[in-house]
């Protein structure tokens, strides 16, 4: 009889067509291979010139997004995007999303391109996000994605799994991002290297919150981060009947997060595991607040920010940049009045996409400046000058920080 399996083992076994367990090497069918403007030109070149494969194996299982520099900021990026658009036409790729449609990870879920129970490979590290809907999403480099484009397959080592049990409910003023930062602070930025993270008890959170949690497992070094849905809820949620971890599956370790005892958390420069409760860094002066990214640019996040900013003004020395995760999020936030509240508070709005998270455009930092971001990385130099400081936290904490002009506890403004 087969060993009781984790979610990662089950999904990879299905995609491999035979039973595998942690430690095995597996060659798997890729449900969707995803790339983005910043990497796709390299993927195309590797596939055609190095592998010598003229066409993708299956255009229906390829998705490409213009989100990392959208719209283009210089001639080099414009040329790269032109290469991608030509490729998409030549290959008949339908799943192509140009400037303004949004961040790959958000749109992959909005358009049902990442499907439950499948292995999804993306040329972006935060492809772990797809665990929020029950897929095994993993980030890979240009060569691996080129191979997935060319063959429809990839190979991987079946990871061991860390089980994370969420207990209780999030208190007012605390978000899933805070739980993710707390976990990274506890396990460290290599705490899940080569491993999968399985969240138990996260099925009660909204899709936006689950995406935020799974996205951040990349900052633990994880290969994938997945929400375990209760077996009895699978049918009602439209998920495959087999998509549950066996109760007696073998885990590398189990970690408990007491949501009900959690405070807002902040990651201070220059590593994502440099985490403390907001009270320890409150009062740190901030020049720029950025609300957006694949981690925290969804409607729920913008609404959370608006709940603090509505009827208030941001501090006079602060610039507040809001970039919705997708065009759909932008439309919804306009329709429900969220955007107006943010604009009236002093925010400015950018084209849906990655924005300044990678330090390329739309909010690059100068030396000596400090940014409070709802993104996922605060590495030195990531958002601009190597002498700028990046703090990470939730959209609620970001909004409170924009109002005060210094890192602030959102619970004091709710």
């Amino acid at each position, binding site marked *: 009889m087969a060993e009781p399996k984790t979610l990662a083992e089950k999904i990879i076994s299905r995609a491999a067509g035979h039973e595998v367990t942690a430690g095995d090497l597996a060659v798997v069918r890729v449900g969707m291979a995803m790339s983005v403007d910043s990497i796709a030109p390299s993927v195309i070149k590797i596939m055609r010139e190095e592998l010598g494969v003229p066409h993708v194996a299956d255009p229906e299982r390829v998705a490409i997004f213009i989100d990392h520099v959208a719209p283009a900021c210089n001639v080099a990026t414009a040329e790269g995007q032109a290469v991608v658009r030509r490729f998409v036409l030549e290959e008949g790729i339908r799943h192509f999303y140009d400037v303004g449609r949004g961040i790959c990870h958000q749109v992959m879920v909005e358009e049902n391109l990442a499907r439950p129970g499948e292995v999804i490979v993306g040329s*972006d590290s935060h492809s772990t996000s797809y665990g929020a809907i029950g897929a095994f999403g993993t980030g890979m*480099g240009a060569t691996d994605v080129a191979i997935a484009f060319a063959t429809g397959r990839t190979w991987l080592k079946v990871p061991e799994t860390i089980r994370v049990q969420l207990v209780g409910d999030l208190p007012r003023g605390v978000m899933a991002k805070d739980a993710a930062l707390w976990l990274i602070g506890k396990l460290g930025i290599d705490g899940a290297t080569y491993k999968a993270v399985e969240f138990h008890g996260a099925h009660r959170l909204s899709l936006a919150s689950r995406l935020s949690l799974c996205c951040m497992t990349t900052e633990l070094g994880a290969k994938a981060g997945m929400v375990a849905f209760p077996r009895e809820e699978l049918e009602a949620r439209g998920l495959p009947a087999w998509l549950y971890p066996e109760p007696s599956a073998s885990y590398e370790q189990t970690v408990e997060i007491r949501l009900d005892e959690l405070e807002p958390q902040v990651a201070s420069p220059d590593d994502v595991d440099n985490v403390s409760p907001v009270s320890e860094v409150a009062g740190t002066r901030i020049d720029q607040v950025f609300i957006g990214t694949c981690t925290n640019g969804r409607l729920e996040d913008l609404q959370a920010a608006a709940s603090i900013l509505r009827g208030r003004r941001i501090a006079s020395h602060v610039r507040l940049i809001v970039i919705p995760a997708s065009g759909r999020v932008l439309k919804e936030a306009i329709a429900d009045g969220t955007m107006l509240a943010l604009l009236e508070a002093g925010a400015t709005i950018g084209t849906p996409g990655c924005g300044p998270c990678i330090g390329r455009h739309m909010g690059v930092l100068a030396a000596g400046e400090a940014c409070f971001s709802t993104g996922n990385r605060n590495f030195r130099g990531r958002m601009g000058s190597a002498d700028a400081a990046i703090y990470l936290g939730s959209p609620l904490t970001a909004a409170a920080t924009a109002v005060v002009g210094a890192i602030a506890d959102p619970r004091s403004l709710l």
Partner: protein
Amino acid sequence: MARVWKFGDDVDTDQIVPGRYAPYMTSEAEFFRYAFIEHRPEFAQNVRPGDIIVAGDNFGCGSSREYAPLALKKLGIAAIIANSFARIFFRNAINLGIPLFEDRAAVSALADGEEVELDVANGLLRTASGQIQLRKPPAFVQEILAAGTIVDYLRRYGRFPGE
């Protein structure tokens, strides 16, 4: 002789090549000249083909950008020895044919600026104070490195490692 370039823990890919110097932002012909531009500005100018990088835990964490190990390959880095590697960097570097060794004892024995000789095929490191036998990578990694790169491997065998 090869120079040892020693780094600490958690060297992220934004340090190896910041996103704004990616080939996408600059060009294929110049991005690698920005390797460690802020973290260690003298590196790209002074590194010689055959030199090796030695680092602590979790080398290459962060973004999936393959141009980080590609920059090191283009600058002629012959091997990287670290306590541990981040997973995407590990895949990318092996795919590009850069030998990686996880060997804590070797890392602690090596100093920045030290001149050594590395026999990559046998994992043998000769230093002024003696020889170090490096821990061999897993068999599937050795198979890829023996072929050259993952692209060379696929073109030669028409199948994935372990298939």
